[in-house]
């Protein structure tokens, strides 16, 4: 006889608020209320879905996620359940498949995805979806990341039996300034419609027609022009919605994706940068439920063109004489020249304008440089905009929180510097990663009056044009580092491409400059990488205690309580 366990698995699970579920023969435990699709995917049993998206309401209409399901047999009145030696009841399998997206797990439930019922359902649904599909993968942008293509290769049959004429719908339609539509490729999952209605709150997309003529569209004369419109391109499981920016630019399988963060505002949206060789092709949001959920604004997504733009400064530039033009130079010669020139400046007549667009590591090195020079007129440029009530923070600097922590600067001293430049009490200016003629409000005429202007920047600007020396830095795509977002979360930037041309990452430029200026502090000059600087900072700053590159992880870590929240994330949490 089998020995009965003292406590049945169901009771053990119930104590944890969980239920036991058998998936393809193995028992697992999931919290009550977990959707079957999520449960299966979490244990590596793949359930294909088109319409289901965890962040949107359940539509249940694609029928791709059909799985075979079973429950213990219903007991006759008065009967008691029997348990096998593992403590489970036998599962009675249902004759029809159920959708894994709308149904939740239950105690002693059985799920099978490897049986005949499920395999045939998947094959059948895929065959239907392909009947009116144009099968134009060779010219489709989605190829390579198309769910229809992937599932067909995984679960479909190699041949097709549909030989009739297909339903004709609209092709190459402009839904909005950034999104294109091909109605024939659409599987009518309605993810885009639900996203616009539920997340953005604008019902601009809808289905028109009936039956086989159903098509997603916007109303004539209106457009899908929200600043979040391109998220529907990511959501679209097939090639129906494509990005006008990325269309026909590159096959996705040639692209490398690098997880990093967006630097256009204080939210620090998690993103992937898609690159090939030294070229950035697109940016897509990366899921982080504490920062940006699965979304990002179009304005941020498309702000990457400057990375490969002709305005990039690819070598150090030096003016030999105030009137002479800037000429390219080598790093060694330039840095030595800069050291020589800086030694000539009286520290009280020097000001440094750094940037809250710099990483923590760069800010740390900027502080070291300032200390080495003995400069006290030192601040960052604040940058404010409107909070859009979604993901865009009013703080348009990505690392104001870091600047506050490391430099204890918020931009309050900027007015004094501006005044100093104007009245001539500041004779030399070091600008790190800013165009001071813009937000900092120092006009180019005033810059021209300076004795000495040293600028570190990745692209040409009015400030670099006025500079005596320009040290070419890199964009966010070319460097490692950390930033702290408005909500106090420290997050990592990863290098997606190598620095272009002769450009160097700013932390290393400043480290070398500081060393050449005579610094012998090992905590500065012995740092070979941003990761090491982070460890140095972890020793110095209380909130960073114990941090290392590795333990920040891809999703970041909250290290400060700023009291600032991200509206979209708050709404999402409230919905749960």
């Amino acid at each position: 006889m089998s020995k009965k366990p003292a406590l049945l698995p169901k009771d053990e699970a119930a104590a944890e608020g969980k239920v036991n579920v058998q998936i393809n023969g193995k028992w697992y435990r999931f919290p009550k209320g977990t959707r079957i699709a999520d449960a299966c995917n979490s244990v590596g049993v793949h359930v294909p879905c088109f319409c289901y998206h965890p962040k949107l309401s359940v539509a249940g209409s694609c029928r791709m996620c059909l799985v075979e399901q079973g429950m213990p047999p219903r007991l006759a009145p008065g009967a008691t359940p029997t348990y096998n030696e593992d403590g489970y009841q036998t599962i009675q399998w249902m004759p029809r498949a159920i959708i894994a997206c709308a149904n939740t797990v239950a105690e002693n439930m059985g799920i099978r995805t490897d049986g005949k019922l499920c395999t045939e359902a998947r094959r059948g649904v895929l065959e239907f979806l392909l009947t009116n599909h144009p099968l134009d993968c060779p010219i489709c942008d989605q190829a390579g990341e198309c769910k229809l293509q992937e599932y067909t290769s995984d679960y479909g049959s190699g041949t097709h039996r549909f030989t009739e004429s297909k339903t004709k719908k609209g092709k190459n339609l402009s839904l909005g300034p950034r999104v294109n539509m091909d109605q024939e490729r659409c599987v009518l999952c309605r993810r885009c419609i639900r996203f616009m209605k539920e997340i953005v709150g604008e019902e601009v997309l809808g289905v028109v027609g009936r039956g086989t003529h159903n098509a997603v569209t916007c109303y004539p004369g209106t457009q899908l022009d929200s600043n979040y419109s391109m998220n529907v391109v990511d959501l679209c499981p097939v090639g129906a919605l494509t990005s006008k920016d990325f269309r026909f630019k590159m096959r996705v399988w040639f692209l490398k994706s690098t997880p990093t963060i967006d630097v256009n505002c204080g939210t620090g949206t998690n993103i992937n940068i898609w690159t090939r060789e030294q070229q950035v092709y697109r940016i897509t949001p990366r899921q982080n439920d504490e920062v940006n959920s699965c979304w990002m604004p179009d304005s941020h997504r498309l702000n990457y063109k400057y990375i490969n733009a002709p305005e990039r400064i690819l070598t150090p530039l030096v003016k030999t004489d105030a009137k002479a033009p800037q000429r390219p130079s080598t790093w060694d010669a330039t840095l030595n020249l800069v050291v020589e020139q800086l030694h000539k400046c009286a520290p009280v007549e020097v000001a440094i304008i750094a940037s809250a667009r710099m990483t923590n590591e760069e800010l740390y090195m900027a502080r070291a440089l300032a200390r080495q020079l003995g400069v006290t007129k030192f601040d960052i440029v604040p940058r404010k905009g409107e909070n859009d009530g979604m993901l865009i923070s009013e703080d348009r600097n990505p690392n104001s929180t870091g600047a506050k922590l490391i430099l204890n600067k918020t931009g309050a001293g900027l007015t004094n510097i501006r005044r100093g430049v104007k009245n001539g009490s500041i004779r030399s200016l070091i600008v790190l990663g800013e165009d001071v003629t813009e937000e900092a409000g120092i006009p180019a005429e005033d810059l021209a009056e300076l004795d000495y202007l040293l600028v570190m920047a990745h692209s040409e600007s009015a400030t670099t044009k006025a500079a005596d020396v320009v040290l070419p830095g890199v964009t966010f795509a070319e460097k490692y580092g950390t930033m702290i977002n408005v909500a106090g979360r420290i997050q990592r930037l990863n290098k997606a491409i190598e620095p272009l041309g002769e450009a160097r990452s700013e932390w290393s430029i400043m480290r070398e400059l500081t060393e050449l200026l005579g610094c012998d502090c090992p905590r500065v000059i012995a740092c070979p990488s941003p990761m090491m600087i982070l460890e140095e900072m972890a020793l110095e700053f209380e909130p960073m205690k114990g941090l290392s590159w590795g333990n920040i992880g891809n999703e970041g870590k909250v290290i400060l309580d700023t009291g600032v929240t991200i509206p979209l994330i708050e709404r999402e949490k409230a919905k749960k």
Partner: protein
Amino acid sequence: MSDITYKPGKEPHPRETRRIFRNIDREGYDPSIKCYIKDGGYKTLKKVLAMEPAAVIDEVKKSGLRGRGGAGFPTGVKWTFIPKGNTKPVYLVCNCDESEPGTFKDRFIVHQDPHQLIEGMIIACYAVQAHYAVIYMREEFPEGARIMQTALDEAKAKGYLGENIMKSGFDLKIVLHRGAGAYICGEETGLINSIEGARPYPRIKPPFFPAAIGLYGCPTIVNNVESLCQVRQVMMMGGEAYAAEGAQRSPGTRIIGVSGDVKRPGYYEIISGSITYGELLYDLCGGPRVGRKFKAIIPGGASAKVMRCDEVLKGRNPDGSVRNMTIFDVPLDLDSIAQHGSMSGSGGVIVMDDTRSMPKMLNNLNRFFAWESCGQCSPCREGNPWMLKLSTRICNGQGSPEDVDLLKDVADNICGRTVCAFGEACSWPTQAFTTKFRDEFLALTKPINALKPHSPEAAEARKFLTRED
């Protein structure tokens, strides 16, 4: 009741029991409230309003009344599905979207005896404590809508609707909502979406069981017109008396609509299970047209699986032994025909005689289903037009024998994988037609053009091409 006379030519057959259709085609009867009250109308309501709502539900449960919309779910049990401790408003929706081909019964209630439905609705609303009800009427009944609206206004004027109905303290508002020609609105959740002003896509169950999350997210009871009229009948007769009559598992009367190749097509109200399909077709409907033989019967609306008239069915005798029988021996109740793989559904019987080409019949149904598919879920949206294209091709003599198998296979791939029962239903005709009349389909796939025109083989192959052939 003997004083009732019917219009000439419209007299009920002696084997009929006219209850719901008592006033249909009745001489001197009109849809006015005056006529209805004179005939004893709204008396049952008065009785019901004196009862506890729970007692009304009990009475309906006791009666064993099953819904007449097609699925045959016990009405009283449905009413108890409203979650306990519910604090939201409860809604009642009358499904008057009669659109199942072959079904034509609600039309006559609406046009000729609207107050019967209104009284039934008030009773049902009182039982489930709904204070807002909607009659969802199909757009194809424009005159019915006018008659019903007049009836509603009359009932309100007489104090049967509105506030404090017959001084019972019970309030009720009934709104008439018209559809716009979509079969899918007969599906209860599609209907609810249609009332909400959304595209009438059926909702997924779970979680959207109407009794829990229905109209405007509140508990909602959706009942068919005939069911609601039967509710009045139950309360008039008493649950036990109602249950005692007719088939044990589906008591009461049923309205059967017969269409197609019989001498006297039309509607017949009979005691459930009191006659067989044979008696219905031969006695009540007068048998096949002159010189013809019955070939096939669709026993419960277009989506029910077709039955061959020469099919040998296994029937069980009272002593447990098995006997051979045909569809003509099957009693007309809700369940008997289901044992033989079809369904009695909403009571629409479509009869086909030996002149009919079955592929053509199927093609007509496939066009109906392809046209009416809402397009929400993939199998139904893509499968129905495919079936239509296949059956059209076969009917045009351009199909191959493999296409017949493919047609069946496409139907199998839809069945059991859709959001709503419509998706299921659209695959049943194809499954049944292609299985039961496979020879006719195959005959059409023969390269008949190559045959000698007057050979017996060609004549045989052409037999089912068109009716005239």
